[in-house]
């Protein structure tokens, strides 16, 4: 009889390369040997379709287009002080709470990386004033509208050589942060910034 349970590590590792993330998790739950092999290294699969993140009141929902399936992933850390997802890239969420504290959060490993507060200069004061005068003057609105878009240049699980870049204050300011920086570096611009893409790795 064919002994699939005890296939060599080499063979199993080759198979793992071709599994999607949820298939890889279920693979590790088949038997003890497969569990050990699946826990040996970081899962770096072949290219696969990115998941869509949808923020609901209770759980974030993740849609995996290759399976046409929605996963509800419970992340208790997200419920502390009303965290909201301002963006996602390389498998990480960029989240912001009601006090406008920003962090990076990996929904699968639950790892978190705290980032400094975004600097409020004269423009920030204007934003605050604008908020006070309008419907934005609710903590939730302020939180949701502060960051327009946020992206990462690389996966923080794999190396500390990455950059976080955000467009904030609606869409008029561009700022970036690298691991080890105490503050954000703001790029002053008089025009509105419309978009930022993940492909800015050459900027270093």
């Amino acid at each position, binding site marked *: *009889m*064919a*002994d*699939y*349970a005890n*296939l*060599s590590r*080499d*063979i199993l590792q*080759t*198979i793992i*390369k*071709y*599994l*999607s993330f*949820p*298939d890889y*998790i*279920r*693979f*590790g*739950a*088949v*038997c*003890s040997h497969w*569990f050990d092999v699946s826990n040996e290294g970081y899962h770096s699969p072949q290219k696969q379709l990115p998941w869509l993140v949808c923020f609901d009141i209770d759980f974030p929902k993740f849609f995996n287009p290759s*399976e046409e*399936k929605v*996963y*509800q*992933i*419970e992340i208790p850390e997200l419920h502390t002080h009303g965290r909201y997802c301002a963006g996602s890239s390389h498998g990480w969420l960029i989240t912001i709470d009601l006090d406008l504290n920003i962090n990076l959060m990996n929904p*699968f490993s639950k790892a978190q990386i705290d980032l400094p507060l975004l600097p409020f200069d004269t423009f920030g004061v204007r934003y605050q004033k604008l908020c006070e005068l309008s419907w934005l003057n609710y903590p939730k609105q302020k939180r949701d509208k502060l960051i327009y878009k946020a992206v990462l240049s690389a996966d923080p699980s794999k190396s500390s050589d990455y950059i976080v870049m955000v467009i904030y204050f609606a869409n008029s300011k561009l700022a970036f942060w690298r691991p080890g920086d105490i503050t954000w570096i703001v790029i002053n611009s008089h025009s509105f910034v419309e978009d930022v893409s993940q492909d800015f790795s050459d900027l270093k």
Partner: protein
Amino acid sequence: MATIITKEQQEKEKMVTLVSSDSEKFVVEQKVAEKSHVIKMVMNCCGIESPIPVRRVKGDILKSILEYCEKHSKGEAQEVMEKWDKEYMDKAEKDLVFFHDLMLASHFLHIQELVDLIAVTFAGMLKMKSPEEIRQKFNINNDLTKEQEEHIMTTFGWAFQPI
């Protein structure tokens, strides 16, 4: 006296005999046998005059593997090869004992293209299957420890929502 080598002899010199674990003999062209990195190394160091024993591979498996190597040494168009590979795998995966032995042999003989083809096929067989379905299909016992099970469920419980 000068030896005259006929074309036929030249062709013949490029042939190599492989012997399976159950003593079945296969005579194939050298370029076909070369698809296996292991056999290539043996041929490089020992020549191709005497038969090469492939001790860990049985006749039916070696036959199928050589069929693959022969097809892949012809340099045909990619679409033709993809179609052929698919048919080859469709046939192989129907018999899980055969599929298992083919997987082991392709690794042992180090035929990288075939190793990858089989891994992709295997991954396809696991796609969207629950651990229990996988165990049943491949006749695997659930010997996870309590700690392992707990670790999986607390960290990745979401992956086990009904598919």
